[in-house]
C-alpha cells in the first residue's frame, strides 16, 4: 500500500483498470476496456491508434473532462475520479493545460485575452494576469502579436496562442489532441519543436494524441490503442 502511494506520487498519470462505456440510443458501447497506464513525470508520450480506438476518450479521462465508468485516474497524486464537478473544474484550471486540434480560441478576444482567460479564475490582479499572459506569449514567440485577434493570425500562430493559453497557469501536465492535425507541415514542425522545448526546458509532462507518425516520433514513448484496448500493456 505504501509502495503504491509512493509510485502514485512519482507518477504524472496513473490509470488503474479504467473502463469507459457510453450509452447511445439505449445501447451500451464500450470505448475503453481495462486500461492500465503509468506516465512518469516529465514524460512526453504519444497516444496513437485508428479513429474510434478511444484515444481522445482516454485523453479526456486523464484531463478530467470526462469520468471513467470504472477504475481510477490519478494525476500528480490527485484521484481525479473522486473530485466533485466544482472541485474537478478548479483542479483542471490549475493542473492541466489543453491544446486542441482546432485551437479553439475565443474569437472576440485578442491573443493576450485568450491566454489570460484561464487566469481569470485566479485571484491575480488584471496587471498580473496581463504580465503572465505576455510571458507565455513570449515563450511561444508571439509577444508581438498580443493584441491581434485570432482571425488576424495564421493557423500555426493560433496554435501557438493556444499553447500559451495551456501553459499560462503553469500546469503539471499538458494534454494535446491532434495539435498538428490542422496545420501545414512547416507549422506542424514548429509546434512540435515548441512542445518538445516545453517538455525539455520546463519539465512539462505531455500526453499527445496523434495520427501522425512524424509527430509521434517526437515523443519519448508511444502507446497504441486499438478498439479501446491499450496494446502492449
Amino acid at each position, binding site marked *: 500500500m505504501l509502495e503504491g502511494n509512493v509510485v502514485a506520487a512519482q507518477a504524472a498519470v496513473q490509470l488503474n483498470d479504467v473502463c469507459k462505456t457510453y450509452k447511445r440510443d439505449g445501447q451500451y458501447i464500450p470505448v475503453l476496456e481495462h486500461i492500465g497506464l503509468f506516465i512518469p513525470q516529465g514524460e512526453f508520450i504519444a497516444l496513437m491508434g485508428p479513429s474510434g480506438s478511444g484515444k481522445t476518450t482516454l485523453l*479526456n479521462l486523464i484531463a478530467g*473532462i470526462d469520468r471513467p465508468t470504472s477504475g481510477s485516474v490519478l494525476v500528480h497524486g490527485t484521484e481525479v475520479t473522486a473530485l466533485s464537478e*466544482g472541485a474537478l473544474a478548479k483542479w483542471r*484550471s490549475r493542473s492541466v493545460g*489543453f491544446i*486542441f486540434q482546432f485551437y479553439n480560441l475565443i474569437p472576440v*478576444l485578442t491573443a493576450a485575452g485568450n491566454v489570460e482567460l484561464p487566469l*481569470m*479564475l485566479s485571484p491575480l490582479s*488584471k496587471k498580473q494576469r496581463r504580465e503572465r499572459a505576455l510571458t507565455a506569449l513570449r515563450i511561444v514567440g508571439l509577444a508581438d502579436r498580443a493584441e491581434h485577434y485570432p482571425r488576424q493570425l495564421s493557423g500555426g500562430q493560433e496554435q501557438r496562442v493556444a499553447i500559451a493559453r495551456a501553459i499560462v497557469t503553469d500546469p503539471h501536465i499538458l494534454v494535446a489532441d491532434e495539435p498538428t492535425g490542422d496545420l501545414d507541415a512547416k507549422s506542424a514542425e514548429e509546434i512540435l519543436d515548441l512542445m518538445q522545448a516545453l517538455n525539455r526546458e520546463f519539465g512539462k509532462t505531455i500526453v499527445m494524441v496523434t495520427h501522425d507518425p512524424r509527430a509521434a516520433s517526437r515523443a519519448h514513448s508511444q502507446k497504441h490503442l486499438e478498439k479501446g484496448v491499450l496494446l502492449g500493456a
Partner: protein
Amino acid sequence: MKWMPFILKHLRRNWIRTGSTAAAIAVCIFLFCTLQTFVASLHGALTQGVVRLVTRNSVSRFVSLPNAYEERIGTVPGVERVAAANYFGGMRDVNNPDSEFTNFAIEAESFLAMYPEYMLTDAEEKAFLGDQHGCIIGRALAEQFHWKAGDTLQLTSNIYRTGKPFDFVISAIYQTDQVRYPGTDDAILFFHHKYLDEATGRRAGVRTFYVEIADARQAGVISHAIDDLFENSEAETHTETEAQYSANVGVLSGNLVFLLNGIGLAVMFCILLVTANTMSMAVRERHTEIGVLKTLGFSGRLVLWLVLAEGALLGVFGAAMGLLLGRFLIGILPDLPVVGDLVRLFPRMNVPPAIAAAGMIIGMSLGLVAGLFPSVFAYRTRITELLRRA
C-alpha cells in the same frame, strides 16, 4: 466586475443580432412605460381632488341644471364653496373642428378659490375678475398659439350657438406647480360664466357645479344630501367626487386600464419568446467556446452566470433604449393627430421614476428569463458533448 469586458465582447460579437434583440426589448419597455405612464396619469386624475365634488344633471352631463341650484347646494352642511362650470367647446375657426381646444366658462371667484392648482398673482386675478370678457390661459396654450396677456381673441362655441363669436381679452397666463399639483393641465382657457350666461340670453344654464367640501371623508354623505335636495324635481342631480367624474368623462374606465395592461403583458410575452429564441441561438452557436471555457476550468455555475449576465445586460440595454424612446415619444404624443387628442386629456404626462425603474427591472428580467434556458443548457451539457458538436 472583472467579467464585464468579457460579457460585453460577446454582446458586440454580432451587432445585428444584439441590436435587434435589444430593439425588441426596447419596444416592449417602451410600450410598458408608455401604457403605465398613461395609466398613472389616469390614476392621478382619479385620485386628485377628493375634497371636490361635481354635481351634474342625472340624465346626462350634456343637460344643464338651473343656475338657481347653486344657492341651494351651498346650504348643504359641509359644503364650503360652489362654482358653476360649463364646457364651452370653443373653436378658433368655426370651419375647422380641429381648432377646438379645452375651454371652460367658470364662476371665476369661487372656482379659482377652490382650485389652487391654477395660480395667479393678486393683480392678475383682480384684472381677470374685473373684466367680463377677460379670460385666463395656461402656459402651454400661450406657447402653442403665441398668446400673451392683453391679446384679444375670438372663439365660436360648437355647443352654444349665438350667431356670433365670443370676444375675449387675455387677462393673464396662469401658472402651475407640477410638483405640488402633478398633472395640472396648463392648456385650458377659462372665462366668466356670467359672460356665457348673458350672451346666450340666460339659456346656458349650468352643466356642472363644482362643490368644495370641508371634509373628504364626508364626500359620500354630502353627495347624497345634494342629490336628495333635488329628488323628484324636473332636473334631478347626480353628485360624485371629481375623480369619479373625471374617470367617466375620460371614458377611461377600469376596463380600459385592464385592456392596456393586457396588451402590455401580451407584447412582453411575445418579446420574451423572441429574445429567448435569439439568446438560445447565440449560445448554441458558441457551444464549442462554452466547452473550451469549461475545459479551462470554468465551473458550470460560472458559465451559467455569465450567460445569464449577458442576457440581463442585453435586457438593460434594451430597457434603456425603450425608456429613452418612451420619454421622447411621450413628449411628442400630444402633437400627434388622433392620439394627441386623447393624450391631451392627461397633461404633463411624463414617465415617473417608479415606472422607469420598473421598466429597467422588467427589461433585465426579460433578459434573465430569456437567458435561462441557454444558460441551463451551458451549465448542464457535458464538456465532451459541447466539444463534439464542433
